[in-house]
């Protein structure tokens, strides 16, 4: 009996050694959480990508799509992942990095993946991926600034003799609204909007807390720069709110704007607003199915908010090997266009084909299966700028990035507000703003009339404490930078 047992033990030992030996050749698998709803062909595309990456770097991926709520719950119960999507607007980078839930990659990214570190501009590492001077995330290269556009129904405006300027002021909209209203009856309101107002309109300021404390970009270079102020001290925003109310009273805005969710593409809106980059109009046109011409009315601005639009961070609980595998994977995505295109457009020949466009540049043309079963925002599976362009919208990213040299850059650097000490006040202030925001953004209420009430309520909720705390943290941050 003992002999049999001994033999069995030896056998197990040999077998397990054999198994680990085999395992050493196997690629490292990383779990990667990305943003959005899973497209139908995930398995197909991931298999193809894994074949490629296993051969190149010995890393394969388990790609898991998550929406906002799934990120919130899964992060808070500490479900294991190796690498996750994080940004300014979902799965908050600042909150997670402050709680040290992300891996500090400051040194690792430079030693393990120098090519990855080199291919992303230093300012993006310093401002977007950093918190308190340590790097916690790898920025995704997409549009890194925010520029606000009005989107005009080009044909209808040209028909009444109005040419759309390349650049304009917010107030310049008024004569155009008037002309449209006089000439067209459907839609009855030229500036139709839902309860969120004109998309991107408030992006002329960097928001520090909710929609009540901000640092307007236009104050950079004045003596009021680096001051965190309540929204009513920002003249640019207040002028827009006043104009909107005026237009609302004049019947240019739909009266139920504050109570409806949004204006869908089925409504031929005369004017919409959007945040994008110069040249993005084809995207607007194909969405609205009419000719859309854009005109920039504000920006481009750059700050943590615009640069943290999409990033990838590594779990603080991951081992160093896993962390290196994640970085290697991101490195390959950033330097190998063939690989990047697989995750961006799918399996070549199945989801897309390479074609040459009018400018003689190789672009990716999606097949029917590609459009239906593997379509998502460009930033989801990696940087946009190093993927091929899609055949229906070509952008010269080098030009766009060169333009960023002229952008208005926030003077706040990588400052991020840690709300921990004033969380009760912040929450109460958010609740106050939630009562008025849609009415303000749609021009439904007269801001001058209502402002004293809002100020009084915010004061009671503790806005002063929040403002002081934010200013104190900012001053500390700025002092540490010098």
């Amino acid at each position, binding site marked *: 009996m003992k002999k049999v047992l001994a033999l069995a033990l030896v056998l197990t030992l040999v077998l397990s050694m054999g198994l680990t030996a085999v395992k050493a050749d196997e690629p490292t698998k990383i779990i990667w959480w990305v943003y959005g709803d899973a497209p139908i062909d995930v398995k197909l595309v991931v298999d193809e990508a894994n074949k490629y990456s296993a051969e190149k770097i010995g890393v394969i991926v388990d790609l898991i799509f998550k929406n906002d709520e799934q990120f919130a719950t899964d992060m*808070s119960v500490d479900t294991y992942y190796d690498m996750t999507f994080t940004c300014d607007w979902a799965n908050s980078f600042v909150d997670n990095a402050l709680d040290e839930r992300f891996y500090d990659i400051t040194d690792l990214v430079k030693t393990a993946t120098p090519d990855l570190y080199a291919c992303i501009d230093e300012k993006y590492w310093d401002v977007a991926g950093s918190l308190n001077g340590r790097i916690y995330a790898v920025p995704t290269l997409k549009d890194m600034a925010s520029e606000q556009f009005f989107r005009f129904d080009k044909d209808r405006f040209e028909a009444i003799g109005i040419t759309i300027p390349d650049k304009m002021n917010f107030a310049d909209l008024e004569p155009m609204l008037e002309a449209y209203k006089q000439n067209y009856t459907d839609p009855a309101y030229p500036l139709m909007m839902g309860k969120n107002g004109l998309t991107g309109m408030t992006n002329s300021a960097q928001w520090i807390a909710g929609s009540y404390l901000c640092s307007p970009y236009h104050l950079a270079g004045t003596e009021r720069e680096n001051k965190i102020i309540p929204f009513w001290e920002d003249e640019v925003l207040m002028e827009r709110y006043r104009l909107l109310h005026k237009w609302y009273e004049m019947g240019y805005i739909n009266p139920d704007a504050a*109570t409806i969710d949004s204006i869908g593409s089925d409504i031929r809106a005369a004017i919409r607003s959007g945040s994008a980059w110069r040249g993005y109009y084809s995207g607007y046109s194909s969405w609205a199915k009419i000719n859309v011409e854009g005109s920039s009315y504000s920006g481009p601005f750059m700050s943590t908010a615009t640069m943290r639009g999409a990033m990838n961070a590594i779990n603080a*609980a991951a081992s160093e090997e896993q962390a290196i595998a994640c970085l290697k994977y991101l490195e390959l995505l950033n330097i190998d266009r063939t690989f990047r295109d697989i995750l961006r457009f799918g399996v070549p020949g199945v989801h897309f084909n390479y074609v040459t466009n009018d400018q003689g540049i190789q672009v990716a043309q999606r097949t029917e299966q590609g459009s239906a079963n593997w379509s998502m925002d460009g930033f989801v599976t990696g940087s946009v700028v190093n993927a091929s362009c899609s055949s229906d919208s070509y952008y010269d990213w080098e030009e766009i990035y060169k333009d960023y040299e002229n952008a208005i850059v926030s003077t706040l650097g990588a400052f991020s507000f840690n709300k921990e000490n004033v969380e*009760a006040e912040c929450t109460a202030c958010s609740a106050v703003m939630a009562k008025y925001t849609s009415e303000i953004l749609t021009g439904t209420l007269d801001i001058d009339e209502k402002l004293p009430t809002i100020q009084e309520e915010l004061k009671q909720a503790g806005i002063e404490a929040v403002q002081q705390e934010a200013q104190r943290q900012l001053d500390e941050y700025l002092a540490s930078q010098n």
Partner: protein
Amino acid sequence: MGRQGNSGSKNGLAVKKKRRRFTLDDLELTLLSFPTVVWFIAFCYVPLFGIIFAFKNYKVKAGKGFLYSLFVHSKWVGFKNFEFLFRSPDLANIFRNTLAYNIVFICIGITLPVALAIMITQLHSRKLAKACQTAVFLPHFLSWIVVSYFVFAFLSTDKGLVNSLLRRFGMEPVLWYQDKRPWPALLVFINTWKTFGYSMVVYMATITGIDQSLYESAVIDGATKWQQTKGITLPMLRPIISIMFIMNVGHIFSTDFGLFFQVTRDSNSLIDVTQTLDVYVYKALMQNNNYNYSSAVSLLQSGLGCIFLIAANFIVKRIDPESGLF
């Protein structure tokens, strides 16, 4: 069912002591109560540990798991998580709305379904009675989201039924979602329309269960319908009315989020008359998923509800010792 099952097994235990044997009857009743007991333990008692969320600043320690993060890593903060609620400039308004609507709902919830249940059981045509019963019961199965679209179809500014009618008769259309005056009445009406069918069926079932011989003897003694109702039906309904009343009082600090948020389309112009505790908490916390704050408010709601429930039970028992819930 659950209540009966539980009390059944209790009786079974008492019997067991005397006979010192576990009979087949006991086994049956125990088995019958089993799913309910499991349900209560799994969904009501086990999650109770979550109460400590209300007194902690929950932080995740990466890689250590949920329980470690909650019990060891997160710091105790005392009553700090309740603070945000009392910073609200609308606190008085929020509590007024929550309590006032619930009191109205409770009053209507007792009188209207009882009256209609009695009236329907008096109907001569069984078919008509069934049809009425089904018609008022149906809205109970609709979700608040669906109801909110029904209401929107009536009250939408541009294409709403009501405004189309108003225009037809040459009147000015009303911006329904921006005019708060009609909403208290509208909300009470919508809530009643949706919920009273359910309680009506409960009362009808009780009425059907009343011994018919009572009515027969009353008829022989020459009692009118009204006298029968007053003398037989209502007294027989009293225990169930008390129970429904006490249970509703237990929820007096909670409101239906669907009714006050979805049906009103989260319209800020209406907020003075629609902001209840649940709506406020949602609006305050939708930007940051703060589980501590939401647990704190839930605890407050349940705690106050529990106090009111015990008080209501006490009062009901003083009036009628046999009608209490416990």
